[in-house]
């Protein structure tokens, strides 16, 4: 478990009355063939909130995350993201992707492009920014992740932690309303996870709405307004980070105790 120190402390956001949730699962089901991975998920993430999905591998947490930006299509129930119903007839997947950023465990940077080109490709091609605008944008988001000096490097010249921060900057360059993080530190050496978690912590402090799948329990406790323990395709327990200190179910107690 990595314990990190953060310069900025995130103040939990209480859901406001009347506000629409940014992400809303209602009895969501998802199967891969005969295997039912999500067995009726209910979950609300309010604007400005940070939700951490935790659980053992195979619990469905990554699948739930991938459903949010349409990488996996749900088989049942209702899923609303940024006010768009993903099963509506007029649902536009590309429009959703402009508003939802995702960062993967394996970075998935474009190896043939420089850091700056990685960051500006989508803003230029999708949002039509010109060269000067996109360069200014790259400078801004690379500064946010502390990599201003690497704009002209290629991904292969960077460490894993730096590559992951570029991946975060690449998502931020689309000015998303919602950021998804799928086990973004799992492929990193322990000494590199801290720098990535600090960037995510800073984003949380800045008010970004985020859903993250993580194994970093200390981090989840620290930044998440909502910790969601998933087990066997269901939301088993959900609550504030303090819930981890006092698990109500045997499964969560075992999970926390196992040190994962």
């Amino acid at each position, binding site marked *: 478990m990595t314990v990190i120190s953060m310069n900025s402390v995130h103040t939990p956001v209480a859901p406001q009355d009347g506000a629409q949730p940014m992400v809303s699962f209602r009895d969501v089901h998802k199967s891969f063939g005969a295997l039912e991975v999500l067995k009726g998920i209910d979950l609300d993430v309010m604007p400005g909130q940070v939700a951490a999905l935790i659980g053992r591998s195979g619990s469905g947490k990554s699948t739930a995350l991938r459903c949010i*930006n349409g990488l996996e299509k749900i088989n049942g129930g209702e899923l609303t993201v940024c006010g768009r119903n993903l099963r509506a007839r007029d649902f536009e997947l590309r*429009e959703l992707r402009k508003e939802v950023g995702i960062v993967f465990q394996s970075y*998935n940077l474009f190896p043939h492009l420089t850091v700056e080109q990685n960051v500006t*490709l*989508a803003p230029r*091609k999708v949002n039509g920014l010109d060269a000067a605008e996109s360069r200014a944008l790259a400078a801004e988001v690379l500064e946010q992740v502390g990599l201003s000096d690497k704009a002209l490097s290629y991904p292969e010249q960077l460490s894993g932690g730096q590559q992951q921060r570029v991946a975060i900057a690449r998502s931020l360059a*689309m000015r998303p309303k919602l950021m998804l993080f799928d086990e973004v530190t799992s492929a990193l050496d322990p000494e590199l996870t801290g720098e990535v978690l600090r960037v995510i912590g800073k984003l949380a402090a800045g008010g970004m709405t985020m859903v993250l799948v993580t194994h970093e329990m200390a981090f989840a406790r620290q930044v998440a307004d909502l910790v969601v323990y998933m087990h066997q395709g269901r939301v088993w327990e959900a609550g504030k980070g303090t819930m981890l200190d006092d698990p109500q179910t045997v499964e969560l107690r075992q999970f926390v105790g196992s040190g994962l």
Partner: protein
Amino acid sequence: MLGVSIDQYGFLVQGAFWTIVLSLMGFVGGTIVGLPVALARISRGWFLCRVSSAYVQFVQGIPLPVIMFVVYFGVSIYGFDVNALVAAAIAMTLYSSAYLGEIWKGCIQAVPKTQWEAGECLALTSVQRFIYVILPQALRIAVPPTVGFLVQIVKNTSYSVVIGFFDLTYSAKILNNATFKPFVIFTAAALIYFAICFPLSRYARRFELRLHRRNA
């Protein structure tokens, strides 16, 4: 030199010139037809995929000399008088497009699926993803096998001898009839083929090594 005059060696070089011309035509034609074939092979459209797959299997299942005959004699039946160069170029185009299409299909598929996914999540359209993300990476992968296949193209142009196209092999055959020095003449022809192909093989190998080093 070895009972063959300088002029006669010059005759071989003339043949070699046409071998190179035909090779280039085969490669250019093969690229023009092969690229769409590769794209059709990976397309999600059922029809395009089937048709291109059938094309590749059909062409690959026919020996190149037979393709040459079919194009050369087959077309003239319908009243078009094709000369040997045109017929040979069409046959080489058919042949190389089927193989290049298959090679390039593999190169496009060699780019990790997660690259498509990353592009998709950034709201790039499928065409944008292909042009800006996949194609540049596939091209880099494609250089060694493509240059390698050029060697096959150069060697296989020799089949155009069956329709009487004047290339290196054909000029050697004529020269042999005139001089009765088959060993000298065909050895000379072999050396010329080798001189054309060897640098290509070396280039392919060097590109391959560079690629491996980059990926290491």
